[in-house]
């Protein structure tokens, strides 16, 4: 029997990037906010300690900071005819756990989506005609415009201290920036990162071929910076233990380094760690959330009543909690009806590896970070004419050595031995002279891809696991082959002796890491028949329930998602502060 606790104004589920932003904003509004975090407290000095943070075995191979499958796993299958089986260890993606969430171990690449991304179906229909969108491709508009997003992108970028170069300032294209980006009102808060040899060679070569290279917008900071909340971060040292690690230098933006030092001091904020929410409680009408029920690490159950519930967990858990709570109508793959779990998408992570002459090339790839590098955007989204190509979408292309920890990052040319003295020689020769260029590409919604609850497998608390039914659609596979071929042309021109092209191909496998950019399942939009939340991220069914995370993306763009997730968090907080609290109820009438 759950013990009933005193009422709070707001309960926030999950204290990662979005939970921290939402909680801080709502505390500023004077509300009593409690955050429930299923994992432990984590801070830089203790958990990303300089003395032992650079430890590949512990943090990368054994995933110390990530969600442990023994706590919560997911099941997966490629289509509805297969039996889903549990991901017994996380491979393809790495959900976070604990305070800071996946924002602790992210890479730090911080994009704005292309302006037309927010009205993708309309855009493609206008440019290529409705027949260019395959029948089974369920891409849709977001229900808001880039112009509406711009102020919130700006707020997130200044919170995180993003280091970059504007490509479009108030409509004026800027040399050295991304000429395809939407208009921004002002420069990035910090100048771009320094560049190592590999990205420099990539940019010089790409420029000669007619591309317009620019520095990757980085939430690893190019200099010491104090953000608008008064929190100061340090300069990135290019330590090379970045993606999959916590940052010991206070130079990778995360909840810890940007919000928590302020939020944790607020008298109207309370955090409970090691407390996992079981479900959102609804009143008998099913139209109003009354709070949440959670279990702490002793196994004791509590009911936390609240006026407002905000789901800010990892995106898979946001979808799962809505399914477990009976909020909304689950998607039915046979009929195409229902919205909850629909439009689950991923990211097409394509890559080309170049092997260069070790006598002439020394890239020192161990010098780097998750977001240090150079990019081009000509191959992204609809920045090129898809008319003659027979597919839609594309990806951001970048050369960004994130480090070269040698358990995981020591490729050898094809045909090399995998062990013995021959392997040692091949590895020694290629370790400093290989260079990868990636193309992180769009993933478009498909009728057959969705999330629901698994009928067989349960977590440690006996609740059904989330079930992923997903495979790469034909469109995305064709797109990946095309962009990877274009990237290979650049790597060849850079002078690589040998090239390995790795375009993403079917079937999707849970085993190799690809990216943690899983999105969708509670799509946002203006039409309740195809979306779960409105453009303010408010549930259509339960107006005092909001959810903030990549789960609200209707499909994925050819960019990393965190910049857009952070902007949406600020936008949802603003809507709650300036609209919802004045008149609690639906902010959009369907």
């Amino acid at each position, binding site marked *: 029997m759950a013990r009933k606790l005193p009422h709070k104004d707001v309960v926030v589920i999950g204290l990662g990037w979005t939970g921290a932003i939402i909680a801080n904003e709502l505390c500023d509004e004077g509300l009593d906010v409690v955050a429930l975090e299923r*994992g*432990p*407290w984590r801070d830089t*000095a*203790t958990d990303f*300690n300089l003395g*032992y943070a*650079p*430890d*590949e*075995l512990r943090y990368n191979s054994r995933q110390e*900071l*990530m*969600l*442990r499958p*023994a*706590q919560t*796993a997911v099941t*997966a*299958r*490629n289509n509805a005819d297969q039996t889903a*089986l*549990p*991901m*017994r260890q996380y491979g393809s993606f790495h959900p976070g756990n*604990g305070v800071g969430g996946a924002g602790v171990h992210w890479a730090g690449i911080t994009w704005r989506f292309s302006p037309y991304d927010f009205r993708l179906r309309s855009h493609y229909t206008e440019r290529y005609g409705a027949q260019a969108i395959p029948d089974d491709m369920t891409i849709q508009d977001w229900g808001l415009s880039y112009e509406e997003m711009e102020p919130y992108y700006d707020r997130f970028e200044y919170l995180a201290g993003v280091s970059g170069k504007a490509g479009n300032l108030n409509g004026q294209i800027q040399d050295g920036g991304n000429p395809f980006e939407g208009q921004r009102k002002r420069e990035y808060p910090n100048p771009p990162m320094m560049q190592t*040899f590999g990205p420099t060679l990539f940019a010089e070569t790409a420029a000669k071929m007619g591309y317009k290279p620019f520095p990757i917008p980085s939430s690893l900071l190019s200099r010491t910076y104090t953000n608008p909340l008064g929190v100061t971060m340090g300069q990135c*040292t*290019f*330590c090379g*233990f970045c993606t999959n690690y916590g940052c010991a230098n206070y130079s990778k933006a995360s909840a810890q380094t940007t919000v*928590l*030092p302020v939020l*944790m*001091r607020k008298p109207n904020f*309370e*955090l*409970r760690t090691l407390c996992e929410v079981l479900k959102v409680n609804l009143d008998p009408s099913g139209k109003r959330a009354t709070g949440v029920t959670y279990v*702490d*690490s*002793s196994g*004791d159950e*509590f009911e936390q009543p609240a006026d407002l519930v905000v789901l800010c967990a990892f995106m898979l858990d946001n979808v799962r909690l809505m399914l477990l709570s009976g909020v909304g109508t689950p998607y039915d793959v046979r009929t195409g009806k229902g919205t909850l779990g629909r439009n689950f998408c991923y990211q097409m992570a394509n890559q080309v590896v170049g092997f260069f002459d070790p006598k002439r090339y*020394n890239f020192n790839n161990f*010098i780097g970070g998750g977001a240090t590098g150079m990019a081009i955007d000509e191959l992204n989204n609809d920045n090129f004419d898809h008319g003659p190509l027979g597919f839609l979408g594309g990806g951001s292309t970048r050369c960004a050595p994130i480090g070269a*920890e*040698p*358990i995981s990052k*020591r490729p050898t040319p094809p045909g090399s031995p995998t*062990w013995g*003295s021959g392997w*040692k020689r091949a*590895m*020694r020769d290629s*370790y*400093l002279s290989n260079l990868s260029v990636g193309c992180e590409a769009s993933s478009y919604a498909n009728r057959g891809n969705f999330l629901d609850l698994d009928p*067989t497998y349960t977590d*440690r608390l006996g609740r059904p696991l989330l079930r992923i039914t997903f495979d790469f659609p034909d469109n995305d596979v064709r797109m990946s082959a095309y962009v990877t071929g274009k990237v290979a042309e650049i790597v060849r021109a850079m002078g690589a002796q040998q090239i390995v092209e790795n375009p993403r191909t079917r079937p999707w*496998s*849970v085993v190799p890491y690809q990216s943690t950019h899983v999105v969708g399942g509670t799509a946002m939009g203006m039409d309740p028949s195809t979306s779960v939340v409105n453009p303010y991220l408010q549930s259509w069914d339960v107006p005092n329930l909001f959810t903030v995370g990549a789960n609200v993306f209707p499909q994925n763009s050819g960019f990393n998602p965190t910049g857009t997730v952070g902007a949406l968090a600020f936008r949802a907080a603003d809507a709650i502060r300036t609209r919802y609290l004045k008149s609690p109820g639906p902010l959009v009438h369907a």
Partner: protein
Amino acid sequence: MSKTSAADRLDVLGTSRRRFLASTAMGLVVLATSGVKARVLFGTGLPWDSGATDPPRQVLPGPWQFFTPREGEVVEAIVERLIPADELSVSGKDAGCAVFIDRQLAGHYGTSDRLYMKGPFQPGLPTQGDQTDLTPAKKYRLGLKALDAHCRTAMDGKGFTDLSPEQKDSLLAAMEKDEVAFDGPVGSGSFFSLVLQNTMEGFFADPIYGGNRDMVSWKMIGFPGTRYDYRDFVLKHNQKYPLPPVSIGGRSDWARKG
């Protein structure tokens, strides 16, 4: 849940044992009265716990913690062929890879405590990953037993350690291709790939874990280890990095002499 101790339950939730001890010692505000406590934090600033850091423990040489003496000899013989001594480095055995694997198998990696190990266990597709109920520790126990049995019947009654280097290499190469019939649930190919993966982990991990003795692999390839600050070298393009590697434990020449 198979585990009942408080520290084990907390491990699944992602917290460190040191943190658990520090939290309970400080008597933080708690919600319930029994067992492991969730923490409630409010208006306190950042709840930094003195002494709660959780550094890795240095693996020390010494008796096997997981392997039997016989198993240990066989694993040493395997890692000596996967990473042979040559002009580039000492062997995997001399680098400590077998000790590394032994200590890993004795810890949470070996027991799969942090993984999803609930049934039903049913065969899956390759795209669904490992679906067996076998932990790495069990896979080693069964794989080494099957290798031993194979050698006794197919190699004139010899054990793996009795084979010549050439015989060992050709047997390992056949295992890599999954061409050796192993008795039991662990196939020769999957056993080989597990041992190869763990050997490479040991060879390239921080020396604190028992392999990569004196940073031998890092010196071989030019990885500077845990230096953590390259700002003054970022713009020195296409040049050899001049400093020797450093590990979490420092470097042997930092040790006090005499």
